[in-house]
């Protein structure tokens, strides 16, 4: 691999924001193809995701790596647009109505961006109507819903039911501390992830199906 691209990937793996910015700029200054720089960033984030799943690194590292990725993507974006490179898939993501807790949802959003998903983050406390309208309007491939509280799990059930009754035909994935595989199956969600680390794999599987 080109040493400049390797530096990009290594900076993400090392969870070093400054190094990622410097390495990305250096790769662009050397006129490397924007898509190959993006691939290097994604390789770095994939490594971060693998280590997170294996409990070798934790939320602080993932947050810093994701911010590093975001900074680099900011530098890269004009070049990607100029080259006509687009995100692989688009996801609409939020916490369900009544739930303001968003760190899990934010982690999933960051990790999906690292896997070249375009993430439409609707934030917290989002009604079923707003989710459905955004997913249809944005032509999303997938919806992701999060709930931290048992008291907001009924809203998750209701939101999934209303999505299934709507004109949006894509899959819905769910997660959050009290959410279980059994509950996800019960409410007819298409996928459940027990943690942010597995959510990327799940999203890729659902959009590939």
């Amino acid at each position, binding site marked *: 691999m080109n040493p400049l691209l390797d530096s990009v990937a290594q900076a993400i793996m090392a*969870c070093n*924001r400054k190094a990622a910015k410097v390495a990305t700029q250096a790769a662009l200054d050397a006129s490397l193809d924007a898509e190959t720089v993006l691939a290097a960033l994604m390789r770095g984030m994939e490594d971060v995701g693998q280590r997170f799943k294996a*409990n070798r*690194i*934790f*939320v*602080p*590292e993932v*947050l*810093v790596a994701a*911010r590093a990725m975001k900074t680099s993507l900011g530098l890269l974006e004009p070049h990607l647009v100029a080259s006509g490179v687009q995100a692989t898939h688009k996801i609409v993501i939020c916490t369900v109505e*009544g*739930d*303001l*807790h968003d*760190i899990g949802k*934010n982690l999933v959003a960051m990790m999906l961006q690292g896997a070249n998903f375009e993430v439409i983050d609707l934030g917290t*406390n989002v009604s079923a109507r707003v989710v459905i309208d955004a997913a249809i309007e944005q032509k999303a491939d997938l919806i992701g819903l999060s709930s931290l*509280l*048992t*008291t907001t799990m*009924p809203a998750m059930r209701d939101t999934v039911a209303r999505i299934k009754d709507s004109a949006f035909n894509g899959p819905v994935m769910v997660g959050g*501390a*009290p959410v*279980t595989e059994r509950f996800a199956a019960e409410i007819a969600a298409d996928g459940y992830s*027990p*943690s942010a680390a597995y959510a990327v794999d799940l999203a890729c599987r659902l959009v590939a199906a």
Partner: protein
Amino acid sequence: MISSIAPSTARMTKREIITAVLQGQQPDYTPWSFRFTQEPEAHLCQHFGCEPEDLLAHTGCHILELGSPIGFFEDIGNNRFRDVFGVVWDRSQDKDIGLPENQLLAEPEDLGNYTLPDPCDPRFFADIKRRTERYPDRFRLFTLGFSLFERAWTLRGMEDLLMDFIEEPDFVHALFEKIADYNIAQVKEALKYDIDAVYYGDDWGQQRGLIMGYDRWKEFIYPQLQRMYGVVKDAGRFQFIHSCGDVDELFPDLIDIGLNCFNPFQPEAMDVYEIHRDYRDRLSFWGGLSTQSTLPYESAATVRAESRKLLEMGRAGSFIFSPSHSVESDVPFKNILAFIEEAHAQPAAAGQI
């Protein structure tokens, strides 16, 4: 600590029973102490025909919680409440605590200009005398919530604080030290009263594993806990901690620095029976009844069966029965009555209701 049979609980006060259980003695029955969020508490008061202050007399809870675990708030309108630290909490959804809306420490440099409020605010201690006189037979627990990591993220923001562990370690150490100093000052004041234990609340866990990982917990949080627990141990009182989530990997360290009792003991995050068996000679547990699945979603019969199993486990000592969180508004009322009745139905507890 070697388990031994406690003297007959019929002659003991609730305060003495909890003390015996924390010392590893086997009680005649498993003591209990429950917590409720606003709606279930109101429902229970209606059920028993009492005021919130009198609820303890009806539930028979063994622990009298003193102090003000989440501090004092000023209603600033629009479901927003400002605490004495300056944090504005959005209670539009969660009516009991809420979520911080502002970021007092926008940059690490802001710490130098930030002054914590008075840790010895008289309001923390104002009701100790009155409440201990009202319930003289209960175990007296001085509670201090948002005690370190949580206080830090309410001031700095969760995501920024987590990244600071990596990018601004000196700031995190300084912030934690400042918060621990505040806690220690408040606890030293509390120890002037006839209390039995100090309870810190600080969530470190996720459903699986620690938020920040063990190494960072040990580097940043443990040294401050060591100082905080040390003050309580030196005064000869018991030390409690509340941390939600999957944190049992920390038990050996926490025991080393003097922890006596762990709450909330969530069955979804850890195998409560296995952990109790493995640690009960060194650590007691308070909680155990599933609030994520059983209480909101299962039948009263299932609640009773799970309660009886936990109460039986507690006969070995080192256990205080309770739901593993303050009971939320989504729990059917018949399920609330079910676990209360099961605790009361223990034959040897008859004189304690």
